[in-house]
């Protein structure tokens, strides 16, 4: 069968999966007074449509920042405005100032779900298709298989179409950025990534690899001459993109500062809820939150984050190849759970890597249970697991060589064994996930440990992240595989 028909069928299947999940409940459904992320997005439409731009990020009588105040960068606000404009033409009650708080109806849900799908169709899905067709290796069947698994990733589907968010937009822009960098269009890539940053500040986690890769590339080309010219072009593009996005807020410095204060809420503390990162896991042993002051927590977190990503970024600066860039992107994600469904389906062509992706989804199970998304969670996770194993193992073999452990194998085998005997640990990981999922969904925790299962899930996920983080750092410091079709972008 021709590639275009296979690609179309895969994309259509991905759309069905998304729409099927969106038939279920969303976060905060029927739960006044605060509801959830769905109401937050609806509220942003109400605020952006009815209020002048100068009031969007400020606490005024018309805009109560305590009730889902805007805390994403301006591009999200503009997107909300566009959605609100359409909402108003269909049914003004959906975005009426103050009166539409907590508005819920079948038609409104349909509209909101449709906005997510449209955004995905315009931004995320084309990026995935083009990335897989042009920047992955192998036969066309393998590329389509990778693309299919990529599109089926449960994390993004469940969060965007279940819980309700627009991660597809920021991830899509970031992926366009990666795609452009892979094809050697650095200026376009930096513009795309700037758009991603201006949509969701969480993309900052990927900003360092982008920065180091581009800077390294400029240095390698020669800082006197072409390299400098490239650096200037990239710099100007980034600044121009930011300026365009922030234009309405640049009139007064206080406006811009308020936006920054809203999108970086450092007052919130070291971690929130049961997140699968270092601090939450560490907190079970040492109560960091009670030992350190708020400011100390912030500096500690910043310092540790930078230290963690430093090796990877330095490596990227010295060897700015697309291969190392992709690895660095994966290495920096172990920090916050939302960013984890980064399209590091970059490495999706090895089935073993399906495992950490699924662990991330499992780590969000407590959230999905709260939203009433257990059935979609089970179906999408099973689907992703099954098709990753079936399609990718049929087309590729997960060899140790490809895992790039080689000389490091003996050294790291004793310390942490995730990928030493990879198939055994793959299955152990899957079993752990299934066990934890069943426990979280079905069992009742003992009364003196009410958060037992969410914490267990977070800690298990964290251990996987840590292992993945170390693994990819190891791989990054070894030589890239000598594949004939290896793309060299410099």
């Amino acid at each position, binding site marked *: 069968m021709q590639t275009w028909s296979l690609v179309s069928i895969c994309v259509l299947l991905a759309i069905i*999966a998304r729409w*099927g999940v969106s038939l279920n409940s969303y976060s905060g459904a029927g739960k006044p007074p605060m509801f959830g992320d769905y109401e937050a997005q609806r509220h942003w439409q109400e605020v952006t449509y009815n209020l002048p731009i100068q009031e969007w990020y400020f606490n005024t009588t018309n805009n109560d920042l305590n009730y889902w105040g805007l805390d994403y960068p301006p591009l999200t606000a503009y997107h909300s405005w566009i959605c609100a404009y359409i909402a108003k033409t269909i049914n003004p009650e959906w975005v009426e100032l103050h009166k539409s708080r907590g508005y819920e109806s079948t038609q409104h849900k349909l509209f909101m779900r449709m906005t997510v799908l449209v955004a995905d169709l315009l931004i995320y899905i084309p990026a995935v298709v083009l990335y897989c067709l042009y920047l992955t290796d192998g036969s066309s069947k393998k590329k389509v298989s990778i693309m299919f698994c990529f599109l089926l990733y449960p994390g993004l589907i469940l969060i965007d179409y279940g819980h309700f968010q627009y991660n597809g937009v920021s991830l899509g822009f970031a992926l366009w950025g990666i795609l452009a960098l892979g094809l050697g269009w650095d200026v376009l890539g930096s513009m795309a990534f700037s758009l991603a940053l201006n949509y969701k500040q969480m993309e900052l986690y990927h900003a360092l690899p982008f920065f180091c890769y581009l800077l390294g590339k400029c240095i390698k080309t020669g800082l006197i001459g072409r390299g400098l010219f490239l650096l200037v072009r990239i710099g100007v593009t980034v600044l121009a993109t930011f300026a365009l996005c922030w234009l309405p807020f640049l009139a007064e410095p206080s406006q811009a500062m308020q936006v920054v204060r809203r999108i970086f809420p450092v007052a919130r503390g070291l971690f929130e809820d049961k997140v699968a990162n270092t601090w939450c896991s560490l907190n079970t042993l040492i109560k960091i939150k009670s030992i350190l002051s708020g400011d100390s927590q912030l500096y500690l977190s910043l310092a540790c984050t930078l230290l963690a990503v430093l090796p990877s970024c330095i490596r990227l600066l010295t060897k700015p190849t697309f291969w190392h860039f992709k690895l660095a992107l994966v290495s920096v994600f172990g920090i916050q759970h939302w960013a984890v469904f980064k399209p590091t389906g970059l490495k999706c062509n090895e089935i073993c890597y399906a495992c950490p992706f699924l662990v991330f989804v499992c780590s969000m199970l407590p959230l999905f249970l709260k939203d009433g998304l257990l059935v979609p969670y089970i179906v999408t996770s099973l689907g992703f697991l099954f098709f990753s194993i079936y399609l990718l193992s049929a087309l590729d073999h997960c060899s140790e060589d490809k895992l790039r452990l080689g000389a490091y194998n003996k050294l790291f085998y004793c310390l942490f064994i995730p990928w030493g005997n990879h198939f055994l640990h793959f299955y152990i990981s899957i079993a752990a996930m299934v066990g934890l999922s069943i426990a979280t969904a079905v069992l009742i925790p003992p009364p003196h440990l009410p958060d037992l299962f969410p914490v267990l899930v977070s800690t298990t996920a964290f251990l996987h992240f840590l292992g993945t983080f170390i693994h990819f750092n190891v791989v990054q410091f070894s030589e890239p595989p000598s594949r004939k079709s290896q793309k060299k972008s410099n």
Partner: protein
Amino acid sequence: MAADSCSWFPALAVGVSLLKCFFISAYRSTDFEVHRNWLAITHSLPVSRWYYENTSEWTLDYPPLFAWFELGLSQVARRFDANMLQVENLNYASPATVLFQRLSVIVTDVVFIYAARECCRCVREPKGSRDVLSRPSFVLAVLLLWNFGLLVVDHIHFQYNGFLFGFLLLSVAKHLQSQHLQGALLFAFLLNLKHIYLYVAPAYGVYLLRSYCFAQDNKDGSVRWSSFSPLRLLALGAIVTSVCALSFGPFIAMVRGREFFFCSGAAPSGSAPSVYRVIKNTHHDVEELPPASMTGGLVQEFEHSVLPSVTPAVTLVCTLLSILPAVASIWLRPHGAQGFLRCLLLCALGCFMFGWHVHEKAILIAILPLSILAVESREDAGIFLILTTTGHYSLFPLLFTPAELPIKVVLMLMFTIFSFTALRKLHSAQGSLLHPLEVIYLLGLVAVAIACEVVFPLSPWQQRLPFLPLLVTSVYCAMGVCYAFLRLYASLLLRREEKPKQL
């Protein structure tokens, strides 16, 4: 079959089963309550009351074997939510009930999956190693397992057609494999599960009598009367009788009058693209009808005020006349199991087009078996594409809720893209599948779809003529179905004779 055939079939089956799980929360039709009611009736009431119970409007009107099936299901239902098994709990639809019922359809589809596997075994594989995606068995597996009509009718609208079609396809597969007694047994079971399959009973009856009971043919293909085997006839009779006894045993005195709609009678409700739809449309042009008369769901009497009313007797005569040539053809000049399959299709289509109280879902009785022929012959592939596209599109009105619009459009696109590209690749060596006029007709279907789903709801006629899109869809599709019917007839009657089979 090549060694790795074992791997792609389970993958297709698992994939489609997971896909079906996405529709658990989707729109459900009244058929959902129908089956819940039947679960309650069979579970809570004694056998003697099953066909008399009428607390709910959805009385038990399938043959007894289906009632036993519902009884079996109810034993599992008890563990999900025992409240659904109370007859008084009309329209009871707790989350556990919905989950159970949806899962029961998905799980019982295993019969269909097994039948599809058997059908794939009957397909001839051309020599030479081929890419898996281009193998006839793979294409057939997808056309059957991922059939748009079944997905939409069973897993959204809600019915157990997958389970039932499993029996039909398995029976056909057995006949293709020359295991006629098994085929007959399976069909006997099927008839006792849902009597709509009476549509194709003439094909079975004549084929088995002619090609099985008469063990040999003369050299010129005509019947050799001396080869009649009473033993075989007895075996068939025994099978049918025992299955009916198993099913009807306790009910002999009770079922009369409930099963067949001829008595309760009505105009063809729904939007089935039958011949009568064409007549109705003409009638509508003459006189505007009160709004909720046609697709109310419940069976009602209806009389035309201008054109002559269509009575059950008339439909019976028309139906018999339409299938007579096909049945006669396999009697006079049998073409083996392939001829039987063609006759089965023609009986199904004839009854669909001229039958009394036909649901649009009945088009699946023709579409599914035609898939088997489509992967083997270029001409049949062309007929399949027309019948399938129009038949599937005629199912669109079944899902009328806005939330399901993306699902039906995307599923339809998926199936259509696959069927067109895969069949074209399969038969690429023999020329194009469709005549240009046929292509234009199918493209016209897209225009009709856009007009009915998008343009019409926003137009001023929406209030005055709410059933206009329904009628336009039915009439347009009726043309395609009639055309496919005639072409199938041509392929049966004008087929070159094969060697008379020795069974």
